[in-house]
Protein backbone atom coordinates (compact mmCIF):
# COMPACT_ATOMS: atom_id res chain seq x y z
CA UNK A 1 0.00 0.00 0.00
CA UNK A 2 1.37 3.42 -0.97
CA UNK A 3 2.30 5.74 1.86
CA UNK A 4 3.34 9.36 2.14
CA UNK A 5 6.33 10.11 4.32
CA UNK A 6 6.09 13.28 6.41
CA UNK A 7 9.09 15.45 5.57
CA UNK A 8 9.21 16.83 9.12
CA UNK A 9 8.88 13.77 11.37
CA UNK A 10 9.35 10.96 8.80
CA UNK A 11 6.16 9.19 9.88
CA UNK A 12 4.29 7.17 7.25
CA UNK A 13 0.81 8.36 6.36
CA UNK A 14 -2.01 6.96 4.26
CA UNK A 15 -2.35 8.31 0.74
CA UNK A 16 -4.78 11.18 0.44
CA UNK A 17 -4.12 12.66 3.87
CA UNK A 18 -3.36 16.38 3.92
CA UNK A 19 -1.83 16.50 7.41
CA UNK A 20 0.57 14.10 9.13
CA UNK A 21 -1.26 12.05 11.76
CA UNK A 22 1.82 12.09 14.00
CA UNK A 23 2.91 15.75 13.95
CA UNK A 24 0.23 17.64 12.02
CA UNK A 25 2.61 18.93 9.31
CA UNK A 26 0.92 19.62 5.97
CA UNK A 27 1.62 16.73 3.60
CA UNK A 28 0.48 18.59 0.51
CA UNK A 29 3.08 21.33 0.80
CA UNK A 30 6.75 21.07 0.09
CA UNK A 31 9.14 21.69 2.97
CA UNK A 32 10.57 25.19 2.91
CA UNK A 33 14.35 24.97 3.13
CA UNK A 34 16.75 27.90 2.84
CA UNK A 35 19.74 27.77 0.54
CA UNK A 36 22.02 26.95 3.48
CA UNK A 37 19.88 24.03 4.62
CA UNK A 38 17.66 25.42 7.40
CA UNK A 39 14.19 23.88 7.16
CA UNK A 40 11.29 25.97 8.39
CA UNK A 41 9.22 24.20 11.01
CA UNK A 42 5.96 23.31 9.28
CA UNK A 43 3.31 25.95 9.67
CA UNK A 44 0.44 23.96 11.13
CA UNK A 45 -2.93 24.75 9.69
CA UNK A 46 -5.44 26.21 12.09
CA UNK A 47 -7.40 23.38 13.76
CA UNK A 48 -4.95 20.72 12.62
CA UNK A 49 -5.34 17.53 14.61
CA UNK A 50 -2.86 14.71 15.20
CA UNK A 51 -2.64 11.70 17.49
CA UNK A 52 -0.43 10.32 20.20
CA UNK A 53 -1.10 7.13 22.11
CA UNK A 54 -4.93 7.07 22.38
CA UNK A 55 -5.25 10.86 22.61
CA UNK A 56 -5.42 13.73 20.14
CA UNK A 57 -3.91 17.20 19.97
CA UNK A 58 -5.40 20.08 18.03
CA UNK A 59 -3.49 23.28 17.21
CA UNK A 60 -5.63 26.42 17.21
CA UNK A 61 -4.65 29.94 16.17
CA UNK A 62 -1.63 31.14 14.28
CA UNK A 63 -0.02 34.09 16.02
CA UNK A 64 0.21 32.59 19.51
CA UNK A 65 -1.07 29.06 18.85
CA UNK A 66 -2.90 27.01 21.44
CA UNK A 67 -2.36 23.25 21.77
CA UNK A 68 -5.60 21.64 22.91
CA UNK A 69 -5.23 18.05 24.02
CA UNK A 70 -8.07 15.55 24.35
CA UNK A 71 -6.60 13.06 26.79
CA UNK A 72 -7.83 9.48 26.68
CA UNK A 73 -8.14 7.35 29.79
CA UNK A 74 -4.67 6.21 30.82
CA UNK A 75 -2.81 8.99 28.97
CA UNK A 76 -1.25 12.03 30.59
CA UNK A 77 0.88 15.04 29.74
CA UNK A 78 3.28 17.06 31.89
CA UNK A 79 4.04 20.77 31.65
CA UNK A 80 5.08 23.88 33.56
CA UNK A 81 1.93 25.05 35.37
CA UNK A 82 1.91 28.58 33.93
CA UNK A 83 1.47 27.42 30.32
CA UNK A 84 -1.92 25.82 31.01
CA UNK A 85 -4.52 28.03 29.31
CA UNK A 86 -7.65 26.16 30.38
CA UNK A 87 -8.83 22.72 31.46
CA UNK A 88 -12.05 20.88 31.99
CA UNK A 89 -12.84 20.74 35.69
CA UNK A 90 -12.85 16.95 35.90
CA UNK A 91 -9.35 16.48 34.46
CA UNK A 92 -7.29 15.05 37.36
CA UNK A 93 -4.03 16.79 38.14
CA UNK A 94 -0.92 15.55 39.87
CA UNK A 95 2.63 16.79 40.36
CA UNK A 96 5.87 15.43 39.00
CA UNK A 97 8.77 16.09 41.31
CA UNK A 98 11.76 16.92 39.20
CA UNK A 99 14.35 16.43 41.94
CA UNK A 100 17.35 18.71 42.33
CA UNK A 101 15.33 21.40 44.08
CA UNK A 102 18.19 23.72 44.96
CA UNK A 103 19.77 23.37 41.53
CA UNK A 104 16.50 24.13 39.83
CA UNK A 105 15.92 27.11 42.07
CA UNK A 106 19.35 28.43 41.14
CA UNK A 107 18.57 27.80 37.52
CA UNK A 108 15.25 29.64 37.74
CA UNK A 109 13.33 26.51 36.80
CA UNK A 110 10.15 25.21 38.44
CA UNK A 111 10.60 22.54 41.15
CA UNK A 112 7.47 20.74 40.22
CA UNK A 113 5.93 19.97 36.88
CA UNK A 114 2.18 19.58 36.66
CA UNK A 115 0.61 16.48 35.16
CA UNK A 116 -2.86 16.32 33.63
CA UNK A 117 -4.47 12.88 33.36
CA UNK A 118 -7.15 11.69 30.99
CA UNK A 119 -9.96 11.53 30.33
CA UNK A 120 -10.67 15.16 29.51
CA UNK A 121 -9.40 18.21 27.70
CA UNK A 122 -6.65 20.64 28.60
CA UNK A 123 -5.01 23.41 26.56
CA UNK A 124 -1.62 25.10 26.59
CA UNK A 125 -0.06 28.26 25.19
CA UNK A 126 2.94 30.48 25.86
CA UNK A 127 3.22 34.24 26.13
CA UNK A 128 4.52 35.57 22.82
CA UNK A 129 4.17 35.38 19.07
CA UNK A 130 5.60 32.16 17.74
CA UNK A 131 5.05 28.63 16.59
CA UNK A 132 4.19 25.37 18.26
CA UNK A 133 6.86 22.89 17.24
CA UNK A 134 5.67 19.28 17.30
CA UNK A 135 8.48 16.80 17.82
CA UNK A 136 7.48 13.15 17.84
CA UNK A 137 10.33 11.22 19.45
CA UNK A 138 10.98 7.69 18.33
CA UNK A 139 12.12 5.12 20.91
CA UNK A 140 15.65 5.61 22.28
CA UNK A 141 15.99 9.29 21.45
CA UNK A 142 17.38 12.10 23.60
CA UNK A 143 16.53 15.71 22.99
CA UNK A 144 17.89 18.75 24.84
CA UNK A 145 15.66 21.80 24.99
CA UNK A 146 16.33 25.36 26.08
CA UNK A 147 14.82 25.97 29.50
CA UNK A 148 11.27 27.39 29.55
CA UNK A 149 10.69 26.47 25.91
CA UNK A 150 8.75 23.26 26.32
CA UNK A 151 5.00 23.40 26.29
CA UNK A 152 4.00 19.84 27.11
CA UNK A 153 5.36 16.30 26.94
CA UNK A 154 3.52 13.00 26.88
CA UNK A 155 3.66 10.44 29.68
CA UNK A 156 6.01 8.12 27.80
CA UNK A 157 8.81 10.71 27.90
CA UNK A 158 11.36 10.64 30.68
CA UNK A 159 12.06 14.14 31.87
CA UNK A 160 15.30 15.26 33.42
CA UNK A 161 17.49 18.30 33.25
CA UNK A 162 21.16 18.53 32.48
CA UNK A 163 23.66 21.10 33.60
CA UNK A 164 25.32 23.00 30.83
CA UNK A 165 28.98 22.11 31.14
CA UNK A 166 31.72 24.69 31.33
CA UNK A 167 31.63 28.03 33.11
CA UNK A 168 32.02 29.94 29.85
CA UNK A 169 29.01 28.14 28.44
CA UNK A 170 26.91 28.99 31.50
CA UNK A 171 28.01 32.60 31.65
CA UNK A 172 28.05 33.34 27.96
CA UNK A 173 25.95 30.62 26.38
CA UNK A 174 22.70 32.52 26.81
CA UNK A 175 20.79 29.34 27.69
CA UNK A 176 21.02 29.54 31.49
CA UNK A 177 22.54 26.84 33.69
CA UNK A 178 20.39 23.91 32.66
CA UNK A 179 18.65 22.40 29.70
CA UNK A 180 15.59 20.20 29.79
CA UNK A 181 16.29 16.67 28.55
CA UNK A 182 13.58 14.42 27.17
CA UNK A 183 14.32 10.74 26.64
CA UNK A 184 12.28 7.96 25.12
CA UNK A 185 12.91 4.32 25.94
CA UNK A 186 10.73 1.60 24.42
CA UNK A 187 7.73 3.74 23.48
CA UNK A 188 7.53 6.75 21.22
CA UNK A 189 6.69 10.10 22.81
CA UNK A 190 5.49 13.50 21.73
CA UNK A 191 7.02 16.79 22.72
CA UNK A 192 5.43 20.18 22.10
CA UNK A 193 7.66 23.25 22.19
CA UNK A 194 6.88 26.91 21.70
CA UNK A 195 9.47 28.79 19.66
CA UNK A 196 9.41 32.58 19.62
CA UNK A 197 9.09 34.02 16.14
CA UNK A 198 9.77 31.43 13.48
CA UNK A 199 11.51 28.12 14.04
CA UNK A 200 14.11 26.52 11.79
CA UNK A 201 15.86 23.17 11.97
CA UNK A 202 19.10 21.97 10.44
CA UNK A 203 20.57 18.49 10.55
CA UNK A 204 24.32 18.58 11.04
CA UNK A 205 26.53 15.83 9.73
CA UNK A 206 29.22 14.27 11.89
CA UNK A 207 31.75 17.02 12.70
CA UNK A 208 29.81 19.69 10.81
CA UNK A 209 29.69 23.01 12.67
CA UNK A 210 27.40 26.00 12.70
CA UNK A 211 27.61 29.14 14.79
CA UNK A 212 24.34 30.22 16.40
CA UNK A 213 23.36 33.22 18.47
CA UNK A 214 22.94 31.62 21.93
CA UNK A 215 19.58 33.31 22.49
CA UNK A 216 18.30 31.73 19.29
CA UNK A 217 19.05 28.16 20.38
CA UNK A 218 15.85 26.17 20.92
CA UNK A 219 16.63 22.45 20.88
CA UNK A 220 19.16 19.87 19.76
CA UNK A 221 19.69 16.17 19.70
CA UNK A 222 21.85 15.28 22.68
CA UNK A 223 24.48 14.04 20.21
CA UNK A 224 25.08 17.64 19.13
CA UNK A 225 27.83 19.31 21.10
CA UNK A 226 27.20 22.93 22.12
CA UNK A 227 30.05 25.19 23.08
CA UNK A 228 30.18 28.95 23.68
CA UNK A 229 32.94 30.43 21.55
CA UNK A 230 34.28 33.93 22.07
CA UNK A 231 34.40 36.07 18.98
CA UNK A 232 37.31 38.43 18.54
CA UNK A 233 35.04 41.41 18.13
CA UNK A 234 34.77 43.88 20.95
CA UNK A 235 31.38 45.45 21.33
CA UNK A 236 31.94 47.88 24.12
CA UNK A 237 34.18 50.66 25.28
CA UNK A 238 37.59 49.51 26.52
CA UNK A 239 36.75 45.88 25.81
CA UNK A 240 34.07 45.72 28.49
CA UNK A 241 31.94 43.29 26.51
CA UNK A 242 32.78 40.55 24.13
CA UNK A 243 30.57 38.52 21.91
CA UNK A 244 29.94 34.82 22.23
CA UNK A 245 28.29 32.48 19.76
CA UNK A 246 27.18 28.91 20.36
CA UNK A 247 29.22 26.54 18.23
CA UNK A 248 27.08 23.52 17.45
CA UNK A 249 28.90 20.41 16.25
CA UNK A 250 27.09 17.48 14.68
CA UNK A 251 25.87 14.87 14.27
CA UNK A 252 22.22 15.65 14.92
CA UNK A 253 19.44 18.17 14.65
CA UNK A 254 19.60 21.78 15.82
CA UNK A 255 16.49 23.94 16.20
CA UNK A 256 16.59 27.72 16.44
CA UNK A 257 14.04 30.50 16.93
CA UNK A 258 14.19 33.79 15.08
CA UNK A 259 13.02 36.02 17.95
CA UNK A 260 15.12 36.25 21.04
CA UNK A 261 16.65 38.72 23.43
CA UNK A 262 20.33 38.96 22.66
CA UNK A 263 21.97 37.68 25.83
CA UNK A 264 24.67 40.31 25.73
CA UNK A 265 22.24 43.20 25.72
CA UNK A 266 19.66 42.03 28.26
Amino acid sequence: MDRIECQWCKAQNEMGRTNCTTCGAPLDKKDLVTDSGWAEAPRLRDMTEFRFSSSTCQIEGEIVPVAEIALAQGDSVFFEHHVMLWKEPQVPMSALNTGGGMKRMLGGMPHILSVAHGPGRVAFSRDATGEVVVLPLHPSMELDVREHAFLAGTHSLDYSFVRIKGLANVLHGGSGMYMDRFVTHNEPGLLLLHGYGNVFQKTLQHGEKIMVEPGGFLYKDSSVNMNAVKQNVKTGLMGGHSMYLAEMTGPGRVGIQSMYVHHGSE
Partner: protein
Amino acid sequence: MTTPPAQGGYTCPYCRMASDGGGGTCPHCGAPVDVRLKVSDSGWIEQPPIRDMAHIRFGHSTCQVSGMYVPVAEMALHDQDWVYFSHHVLLHTDPNIRLGNLPLKGGWKRMRAGMPLIMMTAQGPGHIAFSADEPGETIAVPLAPGRAVDVAEHRFLVATGNVNYGWQNSNVWFTTQDGDDEEWHYPVGRTIDQFAATGGNGLLLLHAPGNTFVRDLQPRQRILVQPGGLIWKDTSVRMFLHFEYPHGQYWFSSARYQAKSTWLTLEGPGRIAVQSVYEKPEGSGHVRRTSGATTHQW
Protein backbone atom coordinates in the same frame (compact mmCIF):
# COMPACT_ATOMS: atom_id res chain seq x y z
CA MET B 1 -2.70 45.32 -11.03
CA THR B 2 1.04 45.68 -11.13
CA THR B 3 1.67 42.86 -13.51
CA PRO B 4 4.67 43.63 -15.66
CA PRO B 5 4.07 44.91 -19.15
CA ALA B 6 4.33 42.41 -21.95
CA GLN B 7 7.30 44.21 -23.43
CA GLY B 8 9.94 46.34 -21.82
CA GLY B 9 10.89 46.49 -18.18
CA TYR B 10 9.03 46.37 -14.89
CA THR B 11 9.37 49.08 -12.29
CA CYS B 12 8.61 47.92 -8.79
CA PRO B 13 6.09 50.28 -7.16
CA TYR B 14 7.60 49.67 -3.74
CA CYS B 15 11.30 50.22 -4.39
CA ARG B 16 11.08 52.00 -7.78
CA MET B 17 13.88 49.85 -9.22
CA ALA B 18 13.64 48.38 -12.71
CA SER B 19 13.85 44.69 -13.50
CA ASP B 20 12.43 42.24 -16.01
CA GLY B 21 9.59 41.39 -13.60
CA GLY B 22 10.17 37.68 -13.93
CA GLY B 23 10.45 35.18 -11.13
CA GLY B 24 7.44 36.36 -9.17
CA THR B 25 9.32 38.81 -6.95
CA CYS B 26 11.31 41.98 -7.42
CA PRO B 27 15.00 41.01 -7.37
CA HIS B 28 15.89 44.30 -5.67
CA CYS B 29 13.46 44.35 -2.74
CA GLY B 30 11.71 40.96 -2.75
CA ALA B 31 8.21 42.43 -3.15
CA PRO B 32 5.83 40.18 -5.06
CA VAL B 33 5.18 41.37 -8.62
CA ASP B 34 1.91 39.51 -9.07
CA VAL B 35 -0.20 41.09 -6.34
CA ARG B 36 -2.61 43.98 -6.53
CA LEU B 37 -1.17 47.30 -5.44
CA LYS B 38 -3.08 48.17 -2.27
CA VAL B 39 -3.49 51.92 -1.86
CA SER B 40 -5.68 53.45 0.82
CA ASP B 41 -8.11 56.21 -0.10
CA SER B 42 -5.73 58.73 1.42
CA GLY B 43 -2.75 57.51 -0.58
CA TRP B 44 -0.85 55.13 1.70
CA ILE B 45 0.61 52.15 -0.17
CA GLU B 46 0.63 48.95 1.86
CA GLN B 47 4.03 47.33 1.55
CA PRO B 48 3.41 43.62 0.93
CA PRO B 49 5.44 41.25 3.11
CA ILE B 50 8.35 39.59 1.38
CA ARG B 51 7.25 36.10 0.45
CA ASP B 52 8.66 33.19 2.38
CA MET B 53 11.93 32.02 0.76
CA ALA B 54 12.03 34.95 -1.71
CA HIS B 55 15.47 35.95 -2.98
CA ILE B 56 16.95 39.43 -3.29
CA ARG B 57 20.08 39.97 -5.33
CA PHE B 58 22.91 42.33 -4.47
CA GLY B 59 26.46 42.46 -5.79
CA HIS B 60 27.47 38.87 -6.46
CA SER B 61 25.39 37.66 -3.51
CA THR B 62 21.82 36.83 -2.62
CA CYS B 63 19.60 37.35 0.40
CA GLN B 64 16.80 34.88 1.15
CA VAL B 65 14.01 35.95 3.49
CA SER B 66 12.26 33.15 5.39
CA GLY B 67 9.62 33.02 8.08
CA MET B 68 6.59 35.24 8.56
CA TYR B 69 6.32 36.32 12.18
CA VAL B 70 9.92 37.33 12.77
CA PRO B 71 11.52 36.87 9.35
CA VAL B 72 15.11 35.78 8.96
CA ALA B 73 17.33 37.35 6.30
CA GLU B 74 19.85 34.71 5.26
CA MET B 75 22.64 35.91 3.01
CA ALA B 76 24.77 33.81 0.72
CA LEU B 77 27.79 36.10 0.62
CA HIS B 78 30.19 35.98 -2.30
CA ASP B 79 33.83 36.38 -1.35
CA GLN B 80 33.88 39.86 -2.90
CA ASP B 81 30.90 41.09 -0.89
CA TRP B 82 30.55 42.15 2.71
CA VAL B 83 27.79 43.47 4.92
CA TYR B 84 27.60 45.29 8.24
CA PHE B 85 25.11 45.02 11.05
CA SER B 86 24.59 45.53 14.74
CA HIS B 87 25.86 42.49 16.65
CA HIS B 88 22.57 41.71 18.40
CA VAL B 89 20.75 40.83 15.15
CA LEU B 90 23.11 38.01 14.16
CA LEU B 91 21.22 34.69 14.27
CA HIS B 92 23.62 32.18 12.76
CA THR B 93 26.72 32.06 10.61
CA ASP B 94 28.95 29.59 8.87
CA PRO B 95 32.20 29.27 10.78
CA ASN B 96 34.19 30.41 7.73
CA ILE B 97 32.49 33.82 7.47
CA ARG B 98 35.03 36.44 8.49
CA LEU B 99 33.62 38.69 11.22
CA GLY B 100 35.13 42.08 11.90
CA ASN B 101 34.13 45.45 13.21
CA LEU B 102 33.37 48.88 11.81
CA PRO B 103 34.15 51.45 14.49
CA LEU B 104 31.84 54.42 14.72
CA LYS B 105 32.52 57.96 15.79
CA GLY B 106 30.74 59.64 18.68
CA GLY B 107 30.77 56.66 21.03
CA TRP B 108 29.65 58.60 24.09
CA LYS B 109 26.68 60.16 22.32
CA ARG B 110 25.67 56.82 20.83
CA MET B 111 25.92 55.13 24.21
CA ARG B 112 23.65 57.80 25.74
CA ALA B 113 21.19 57.27 22.91
CA GLY B 114 21.19 53.50 23.46
CA MET B 115 22.70 52.88 20.06
CA PRO B 116 25.37 50.25 19.34
CA LEU B 117 28.89 51.54 19.62
CA ILE B 118 30.27 49.57 16.73
CA MET B 119 28.93 47.75 13.74
CA MET B 120 30.08 44.25 12.95
CA THR B 121 31.12 43.30 9.46
CA ALA B 122 30.85 39.95 7.71
CA GLN B 123 32.90 39.06 4.65
CA GLY B 124 32.04 36.18 2.37
CA PRO B 125 32.15 33.51 1.20
CA GLY B 126 29.50 31.73 3.24
CA HIS B 127 26.07 31.99 4.75
CA ILE B 128 25.06 34.34 7.53
CA ALA B 129 21.59 35.17 8.85
CA PHE B 130 19.96 38.00 10.74
CA SER B 131 16.70 38.48 12.61
CA ALA B 132 15.17 41.07 14.91
CA ASP B 133 13.60 40.63 18.34
CA GLU B 134 9.95 41.43 17.70
CA PRO B 135 7.23 40.35 15.29
CA GLY B 136 7.07 42.41 12.14
CA GLU B 137 8.29 42.67 8.59
CA THR B 138 11.66 42.73 6.95
CA ILE B 139 11.83 45.71 4.61
CA ALA B 140 14.35 45.85 1.80
CA VAL B 141 15.33 49.34 0.66
CA PRO B 142 17.55 49.11 -2.42
CA LEU B 143 19.59 52.27 -2.85
CA ALA B 144 20.67 53.46 -6.29
CA PRO B 145 24.05 55.21 -6.37
CA GLY B 146 23.74 58.64 -4.80
CA ARG B 147 20.43 57.91 -3.08
CA ALA B 148 20.27 58.42 0.68
CA VAL B 149 17.63 57.75 3.33
CA ASP B 150 17.15 58.62 6.98
CA VAL B 151 16.16 55.70 9.19
CA ALA B 152 14.67 55.83 12.68
CA GLU B 153 16.72 54.37 15.53
CA HIS B 154 16.66 50.59 16.07
CA ARG B 155 15.06 49.78 12.72
CA PHE B 156 18.34 48.87 11.01
CA LEU B 157 19.06 45.19 10.36
CA VAL B 158 21.91 44.92 7.85
CA ALA B 159 23.37 46.81 4.88
CA THR B 160 25.79 46.00 2.09
CA GLY B 161 29.34 47.26 2.26
CA ASN B 162 28.87 49.88 -0.46
CA VAL B 163 26.25 51.72 1.60
CA ASN B 164 27.80 54.50 3.65
CA TYR B 165 26.57 54.71 7.22
CA GLY B 166 26.32 57.89 9.21
CA TRP B 167 24.21 59.26 11.99
CA GLN B 168 23.30 62.61 13.42
CA ASN B 169 21.18 64.09 16.16
CA SER B 170 17.55 63.87 15.19
CA ASN B 171 17.04 67.44 16.33
CA VAL B 172 13.44 66.62 17.21
CA TRP B 173 12.92 67.23 20.92
CA PHE B 174 10.91 69.10 23.50
CA THR B 175 11.09 69.68 27.21
CA THR B 176 8.41 69.62 29.88
CA GLN B 177 8.35 70.97 33.39
CA ASP B 178 8.14 68.51 36.29
CA GLY B 179 8.36 70.48 39.52
CA ASP B 180 11.69 72.22 39.42
CA ASP B 181 13.06 69.78 36.88
CA GLU B 182 13.03 70.14 33.15
CA GLU B 183 12.50 66.81 31.36
CA TRP B 184 13.80 66.20 27.87
CA HIS B 185 11.88 64.13 25.36
CA TYR B 186 13.04 62.72 22.03
CA PRO B 187 9.93 61.39 20.25
CA VAL B 188 11.86 59.95 17.28
CA GLY B 189 14.96 59.11 19.31
CA ARG B 190 18.05 61.14 20.02
CA THR B 191 19.71 60.18 16.77
CA ILE B 192 18.74 59.21 13.27
CA ASP B 193 20.67 56.85 11.02
CA GLN B 194 21.62 57.87 7.50
CA PHE B 195 22.47 55.47 4.70
CA ALA B 196 23.76 56.47 1.26
CA ALA B 197 24.79 54.24 -1.63
CA THR B 198 28.13 54.88 -3.26
CA GLY B 199 29.71 53.28 -6.28
CA GLY B 200 26.89 50.90 -7.16
CA ASN B 201 23.48 49.72 -6.07
CA GLY B 202 23.32 49.09 -2.35
CA LEU B 203 20.88 47.16 -0.22
CA LEU B 204 19.53 48.21 3.15
CA LEU B 205 17.43 45.80 5.22
CA LEU B 206 15.25 47.11 8.01
CA HIS B 207 12.88 45.44 10.45
CA ALA B 208 9.63 47.14 11.43
CA PRO B 209 7.03 45.83 13.88
CA GLY B 210 3.51 45.49 12.54
CA ASN B 211 2.66 46.39 8.97
CA THR B 212 4.44 48.90 6.77
CA PHE B 213 2.98 51.67 4.65
CA VAL B 214 4.73 54.07 2.27
CA ARG B 215 3.67 57.22 0.45
CA ASP B 216 5.17 59.98 -1.63
CA LEU B 217 4.81 63.55 -0.45
CA GLN B 218 4.73 66.37 -2.96
CA PRO B 219 6.80 69.51 -2.36
CA ARG B 220 5.49 71.28 0.76
CA GLN B 221 2.83 68.60 1.26
CA ARG B 222 2.57 67.75 4.95
CA ILE B 223 1.25 64.83 6.95
CA LEU B 224 1.16 64.20 10.67
CA VAL B 225 2.33 60.81 11.91
CA GLN B 226 2.99 59.26 15.30
CA PRO B 227 6.65 60.03 16.03
CA GLY B 228 7.30 56.39 16.98
CA GLY B 229 5.76 55.20 13.72
CA LEU B 230 8.44 56.57 11.41
CA ILE B 231 10.60 53.89 9.79
CA TRP B 232 12.48 55.78 7.11
CA LYS B 233 12.23 58.82 4.87
CA ASP B 234 14.05 60.34 1.96
CA THR B 235 16.56 62.90 3.18
CA SER B 236 14.61 65.56 1.29
CA VAL B 237 11.68 65.15 3.68
CA ARG B 238 11.72 67.67 6.50
CA MET B 239 10.45 66.74 9.97
CA PHE B 240 9.43 68.73 13.02
CA LEU B 241 7.01 68.46 15.93
CA HIS B 242 3.39 69.55 16.09
CA PHE B 243 1.32 69.77 19.28
CA GLU B 244 -2.46 69.68 19.27
CA TYR B 245 -4.73 70.50 22.18
CA PRO B 246 -8.28 69.21 21.73
CA HIS B 247 -11.03 71.54 22.95
CA GLY B 248 -13.66 70.36 25.45
CA GLN B 249 -17.00 71.89 26.39
CA TYR B 250 -15.65 73.34 29.62
CA TRP B 251 -12.22 74.61 30.55
CA PHE B 252 -11.54 71.57 32.75
CA SER B 253 -12.45 69.14 29.96
CA SER B 254 -10.13 70.74 27.44
CA ALA B 255 -6.80 69.07 26.92
CA ARG B 256 -4.15 71.52 27.88
CA TYR B 257 -1.05 69.97 29.27
CA GLN B 258 -1.73 66.34 30.04
CA ALA B 259 -3.70 65.13 27.04
CA LYS B 260 -2.04 66.95 24.21
CA SER B 261 -1.27 65.07 21.02
CA THR B 262 2.35 65.02 19.98
CA TRP B 263 2.75 64.60 16.24
CA LEU B 264 5.65 64.43 13.88
CA THR B 265 5.08 66.61 10.84
CA LEU B 266 6.67 65.23 7.66
CA GLU B 267 6.94 67.69 4.81
CA GLY B 268 7.74 66.72 1.24
CA PRO B 269 9.07 66.27 -1.27
CA GLY B 270 10.03 62.65 -0.87
CA ARG B 271 8.97 59.19 0.21
CA ILE B 272 8.18 58.18 3.77
CA ALA B 273 7.49 54.81 5.40
CA VAL B 274 5.61 54.21 8.64
CA GLN B 275 4.87 51.13 10.75
CA SER B 276 1.55 50.25 12.33
CA VAL B 277 3.05 49.41 15.73
CA TYR B 278 4.62 52.24 17.66
CA GLU B 279 5.40 53.28 21.18
CA LYS B 280 3.04 55.60 22.95
CA PRO B 281 4.57 59.07 22.99
CA GLU B 282 5.85 60.13 26.37
CA GLY B 283 5.85 63.57 27.82
CA SER B 284 2.77 64.81 29.59
CA GLY B 285 3.10 68.23 31.11
CA HIS B 286 3.55 71.78 29.96
CA VAL B 287 5.84 72.08 26.97
CA ARG B 288 8.55 74.57 27.74
CA ARG B 289 11.05 74.42 24.91
CA THR B 290 11.16 72.64 21.57
CA SER B 291 13.49 72.03 18.69
CA GLY B 292 10.99 73.89 16.53
CA ALA B 293 7.33 72.95 16.59
CA THR B 294 3.92 74.13 15.50
CA THR B 295 0.94 74.22 17.83
CA HIS B 296 -2.79 74.10 17.34
CA GLN B 297 -5.41 74.61 20.00
CA TRP B 298 -8.80 73.35 18.87
